[in-house]
Structures are given as structure tokens and as C-alpha cells.
């Protein structure tokens, strides 16, 4: 005989889970009691939302599903924002929650929350496991669903009595058999041929990469495709870093906070290849302004035609589709267009000048990327700091991680913790503002506890800068609820956690301290004094 709790842990071992991010509570204790007896590491997060973000950062850096754990009721509801963030950005997470005894369900007992119900629109799938014998199948399915097709978070809610119940034996299924879930992987060859023909005759083609290219691991494929065809590449925010930013075919991020010439290209193009991009409103605010014919490649058929009409849809795994596409297609006749756009791009001046009274964040982001290793991982929070990082940090062979779809403040620090634990040897730097810092600063305890050499840059301007900018433009400068009065001395806060911290007053200091930060073998937080009137773009 074997208990449900022990089976849950065995399932994680079967899935080769090495690390979990969680916060205990009464009804998840049986599971924890077995977890601790295994080699699976557990990171005690300081709030469950951050646990989900840490699992997200881990998943994105490792390519495996991230696992987070919470107890019932408030523990579970605290997870929701983290799961919603992962859902919007298609990040594979398996979330395990404890639940009250199944015979008490629906009676509003202490710490009861209908978490599968509450998470319905924020998870790819969810399970409430009332029968102990179902545990192996449910876990097998959950990991399969989270990591295949269009990835996403899956929730497993396990009542206390299911964890305590005894099953006859533990048999982990070899395969997940889900009758209604068969994600299509191979693209339709006829569609690919049709698309190749359309592209070959295009005069002004553009490739637009979204997060789907990143999650498909199709970096080499997209570079090869752009190289063979000679077609210029732009990305959405979620697609940042999928192609080295110094690649001559690369034209930066599109969207309301993107590069003007990249947006101009989208509007002038005659054919656009959308790869794993869902055409969110911040990326293409008015799809009607796009005159080009659209070739839309996505693993999720529901994305095709949702926000923009596609002339040639290709459903399947982007990696294999791009391989076939590259083999099929002949070089395109778009040299004139590429050269014209390159001239346009190279003539556009970089914004911002180094300052002596403040740290100019855009200049600093460019300087920082020159100092960092090629395969470094940068996590950006949400707000002005995100836009500065997105447009001025030069990702080479590394990664750019941010909450693109949900725009969840407080994402940078926990996701960087997850990424650093996944890739301990790589440089991991988080960038946030003073607003977003305070949304997850409790996780500094995790940095301290795990001893990871995480680097954090706080762009401090004493405002919620992005909203302040909006109030400047739309509300005649009435700064309602955007000044961060009453904020603590961030350097002192960080030091109180036993972590090294420094303050930079200008660009020269920031560069010197950033060098010191990157060379340090320990965690390091650099607070930069930023002029609150610095624009996002």
C-alpha cells in the first residue's frame, strides 16, 4: 500500500522534477512530509504568487515544466495571478494545491476555496483529484498538457484525504492518453508550398516573431530562414531575444512601445509571416492598418483569425515548419527593401545621452548589455523599466524574460530567481522599477536563503513611471496615486536581507557599479537614481 501523498512525490520523481517552489499549509503537509525525503529541492517562496513566477522563470530558462506548490484557500488564491501570467505567456507550469477534506467541499470550511473553479480561465487544464488511484494518471496528463502543444499552466488540486488515502500500488503510466488532446505538430506541406510561393514574389516581406518561436526553441531555424530568404525580422515583446539583436536582418520590437521603423515596416509590408505571435493589442493596435497578406504560423489553431485575418494559415510546431519552409523556399527578391530599411534603421539615432545628475536608463541599458556575457538572461519587470530594457538591452545568445501578456508587476525578481536556479552558471540580471520592486521584494529572502548570485537593478524614480507618463499625456499632469511617497531606502532594505547593495547617482557611477556587480560572486542589487521625467520610448 502507498499513500496519495507519497504517490504525488513519486510522480514528480518520474517527471524528473529537480526543484519545486512552494509555501506550505495544513492540508498540503502530507505531501511535504514525503517531498523532503527525496532529492527534489524545495524553495520556500515568501508569497505564493512569486512561487508561480519562480516556476515560470525556471520553466523558461530550463525548457521544462516549472512546479509550484501552495496550500488550500488563500495559498491557492494567491497563486492565481502567477498562473494567469503564465497562461497569457504560454509558460509550462504544474501547480499543486492542497484542498480541504473532500467530504467538506462546498461547506465553506476554514481555508476552503474552489480553486479549480477560480482558475478555469487562467489554466490550460485543471484537476480536482478525489480518488487516490487517479493520482499517477492525473500527474502524467498534467505534465503532458503543460509542456506540449501550446504550453501553459495546469493545476492539480488534491484534497487532504486523497493525500492520506492508500492505493494498492504505484504504477506511473508510460504515456498520457487523452482522447480530446492531440496537438498537431507537423505543418501542412501544401500550405507551406503556397506560403513559399507567395513570399518568393513579395517585394516587401517581413517576418514577425512572437513568444511561440521562443517556446518552440526555433531560434536556429528562424535565423536560417531569414538568412536564406533575405527577409527582415521584427519581434513582439515576447519574441525578444529569439534572434541576436545585432543580426543585420533584425529590426527590433514592434508595438505601441516598439521601434518606429519596425512598426513602419509592418505597415509598408506586402507579405508578413507571423510566427507564434497572437497579435495582441499592444503589438498591433489596429490590425486593419496592416495591408499585407498574412502567413500565420502557430501551434494553436484558435490564434489564427482571432485578432487578424490570415490568407495562409499553417498550424503546427514552428520549429519543424520553419525547417520545411527553409528547404522549400527560394531566396526572395527583396534586397532593395531590406537595404532601404537597413538605411532607415541605421539612420535612426539611439535615444538618450549619458547624464551626470541622474542615471539615463536607456543609455545604461545599452552600456549594461555591452558588459554582460553573450548568453546572459535578463528579466524585465513591467512599466517604464520594461520598455527601456526591451528597446535598449541588446540580447545576444541569451534570453529576455518578461510578463508580456498580463503585464504583471513584480515579475522580474522572482522569475530571475527561477531562471538562476535553472541555469546557475549563467549571468542572470533582473531589471525593475521602485514600484515593481516593492511588489516582490520579500523574495530577497529567497535570494539570501539559497545564496544564488542574482543581480538586480532597480530603476528608482519615486513614481509609478508608466502611469505618470500616461497622466502627463492624457490627464494634464494630474499625478493621482503615482508618486511613491513613503518609500523605504531600497539600499538599506536590501542590506537588511544580508545582500550587497549600491546606489548610482549618474551614468558613470552606474557603469562602474554595474561592472562591480557583474564581477561579484554574490547577489548584488544596484539602485539607479532615474529622472522621473525620462520617457518610456
Amino acid at each position, binding site marked *: 500500500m502507498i499513500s496519495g501523498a507519497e504517490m504525488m512525490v513519486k510522480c514528480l520523481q518520474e517527471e524528473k522534477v529537480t526543484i519545486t517552489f512552494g509555501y506550505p499549509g495544513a492540508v498540503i503537509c502530507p505531501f511535504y512530509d514525503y517531498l523532503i525525503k527525496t532529492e527534489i529541492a524545495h524553495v520556500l517562496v515568501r508569497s505564493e504568487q512569486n512561487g508561480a513566477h519562480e516556476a515560470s522563470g525556471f520553466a523558461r530558462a530550463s525548457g521544462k515544466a516549472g512546479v509550484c506548490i501552495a496550500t488550500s484557500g488563500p495559498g491557492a488564491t494567491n497563486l492565481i495571478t502567477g498562473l494567469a501570467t503564465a497562461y497569457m505567456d504560454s509558460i509550462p507550469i504544474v501547480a499543486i494545491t492542497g484542498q480541504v477534506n473532500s467530504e467538506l467541499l462546498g461547506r465553506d470550511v476554514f481555508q476552503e476555496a474552489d480553486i*479549480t*473553479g477560480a482558475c478555469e480561465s487562467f489554466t*490550460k487544464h485543471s484537476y480536482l483529484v478525489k480518488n487516490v488511484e487517479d493520482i499517477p494518471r492525473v500527474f502524467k496528463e498534467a505534465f503532458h498538457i503543460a509542456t506540449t502543444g501550446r504550453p501553459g499552466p495546469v493545476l492539480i488540486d488534491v484534497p487532504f484525504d486523497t493525500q492520506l488515502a492508500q492505493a494498492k500500488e504505484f504504477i506511473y503510466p508510460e504515456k498520457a492518453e487523452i482522447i480530446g488532446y492531440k496537438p498537431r505538430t507537423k505543418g501542412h506541406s501544401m500550405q507551406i508550398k503556397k506560403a513559399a510561393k507567395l513570399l518568393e514574389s513579395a517585394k516587401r516581406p517581413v517576418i514577425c516573431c512572437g513568444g511561440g518561436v521562443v517556446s518552440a526553441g526555433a531560434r536556429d531555424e528562424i535565423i536560417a530562414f531569414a538568412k536564406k530568404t533575405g527577409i527582415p525580422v521584427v519581434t513582439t515583446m515576447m519574441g525578444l531575444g529569439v534572434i541576436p539583436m545585432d543580426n543585420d536582418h533584425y529590426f527590433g520590437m514592434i508595438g505601441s512601445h516598439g521601434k518606429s521603423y519596425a512598426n513602419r515596416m509592418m505597415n509598408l509590408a506586402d507579405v508578413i509571416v507571423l510566427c507564434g505571435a497572437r497579435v495582441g493589442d499592444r503589438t498591433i493596435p489596429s490590425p486593419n492598418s496592416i495591408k499585407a497578406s498574412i502567413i500565420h504560423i502557430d501551434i494553436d489553431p484558435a490564434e489564427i483569425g482571432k485578432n487578424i485575418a490570415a490568407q495562409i494559415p499553417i498550424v503546427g510546431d514552428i520549429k519543424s515548419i520553419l525547417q520545411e519552409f527553409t528547404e522549400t523556399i527560394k531566396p526572395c527578391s527583396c534586397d532593395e527593401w531590406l537595404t532601404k530599411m537597413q538605411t532607415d534603421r541605421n539612420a535612426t539615432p539611439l535615444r538618450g545621452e549619458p547624464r551626470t545628475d541622474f542615471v539615463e536608463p536607456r543609455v545604461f541599458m545599452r552600456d549594461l548589455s555591452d558588459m554582460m556575457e553573450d548568453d546572459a538572461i535578463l528579466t524585465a519587470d513591467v512599466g517604464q523599466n520594461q520598455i527601456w530594457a526591451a528597446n535598449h538591452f541588446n540580447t545576444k545568445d541569451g534570453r529576455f524574460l518578461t510578463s508580456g501578456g498580463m503585464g504583471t508587476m513584480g515579475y522580474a525578481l522572482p522569475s530571475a530567481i527561477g531562471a538562476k536556479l535553472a541555469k546557475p552558471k549563467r549571468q542572470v540580471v533582473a531589471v525593475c522599477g521602485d514600484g515593481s520592486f516593492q511588489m516582490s521584494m520579500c523574495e530577497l529572502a529567497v535570494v539570501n536563503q539559497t545564496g544564488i548570485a542574482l543581480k538586480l537593478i532597480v530603476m528608482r524614480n519615486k513614481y509609478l513611471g508608466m502611469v505618470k507618463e500616461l497622466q502627463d499625456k492624457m490627464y494634464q499632469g494630474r499625478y493621482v496615486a503615482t508618486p511613491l511617497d513613503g518609500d523605504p531606502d531600497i539600499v538599506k532594505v536590501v542590506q537588511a536581507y544580508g545582500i550587497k547593495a549600491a546606489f548610482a547617482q549618474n551614468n558613470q557611477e552606474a557603469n562602474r557599479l554595474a561592472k562591480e556587480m557583474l564581477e561579484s560572486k554574490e547577489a548584488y542589487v544596484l539602485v539607479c537614481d532615474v529622472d522621473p521625467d525620462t520617457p518610456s520610448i
Partner: protein
Amino acid sequence: MKYTLSVLVENQPGVLSKISGLFSRRGFNIDSLAVGVTENPAISRITIVVEGDEQIVEQVEKQVNKLIASIKVKNLTTSGDYVGCLLMLVKVACNTKQRLEVMKIAEQMHARIVDVTNNSLTLQYADTLENIEIMISLLRPYGIKELVRTGTVALERGSSTALK
């Protein structure tokens, strides 16, 4: 335009709430919905009538298809001919003098009389949406005391099935 969708789902707790939640969340309007187990006890069939243009209905189909518990979605309106009907129970006010008249209507329309009292008659009627509307208009002059009807259930014509 109205579209009739036939959705085969795994017969598990919570599936109906997943489907109906999807409709409200994405702003799709459900005209009617009927659910019941199929010849295979592990599979239920949900028949949904939805109002919208072609693009909206295509999104509905794709989003429903995305649910892990859904096995097959078929748009019966666009994929060919189908037979559909719904069931109505209607309690008509009628005294003993009017009873014969109402019974005559029931007979003509092939409705069954399932309950009779001195001042009411309850009819059970299963037919297409159009005939249901006609039946209601025929009974309205007597006074409809209470009425209940199901959503449309439908199957495609011919020997093919939703799964094959």
C-alpha cells in the same frame, strides 16, 4: 445567423461549466444548450445553438476544441444537413368545455397529453424550433400557465457520425 454545434466531451464532472464558462468569458452568446450522455457512457454530447457571424462561430469552434475535455466539435449548420428537435412541456389553461379543442390541437400536432385536471392540460411536444413556435401560438389563446423547453438536440443526416 444561428449555428448548431455538436460537441462531444469526456463525461466528467465540471465539463459543462468549462464549456459554458468559455462562452461567457469570450463574449459568445448561447441561444440554447442541451447535454446528455451518448451511446458511450464515457462521452457526453453537448448541442449548442449560437448566434453570431461566421468569424465568431469559427472562434467558438476553435476555443471549444482547445478545451482538453472536448473530443470533437462539429458545426452542423455549415457541414451539411442535419435533423434537430427540442422538447417542450406546456401547461395550458382550459376548462372542461375547452378541453376537446385543445386535445384536437394536440392530436393534429402529434403532441402527447401527459396530465389533465379540471382547469388545465399539460402537453408534451417534441419537434423542430419552428413547430414549437407554431404550437405555442396555437395554445396561447387558451392561456399558457407554465412552459418549459429543452435546448435543441441534433444529429447530422446520413450514416456518417461526428467521430467518423
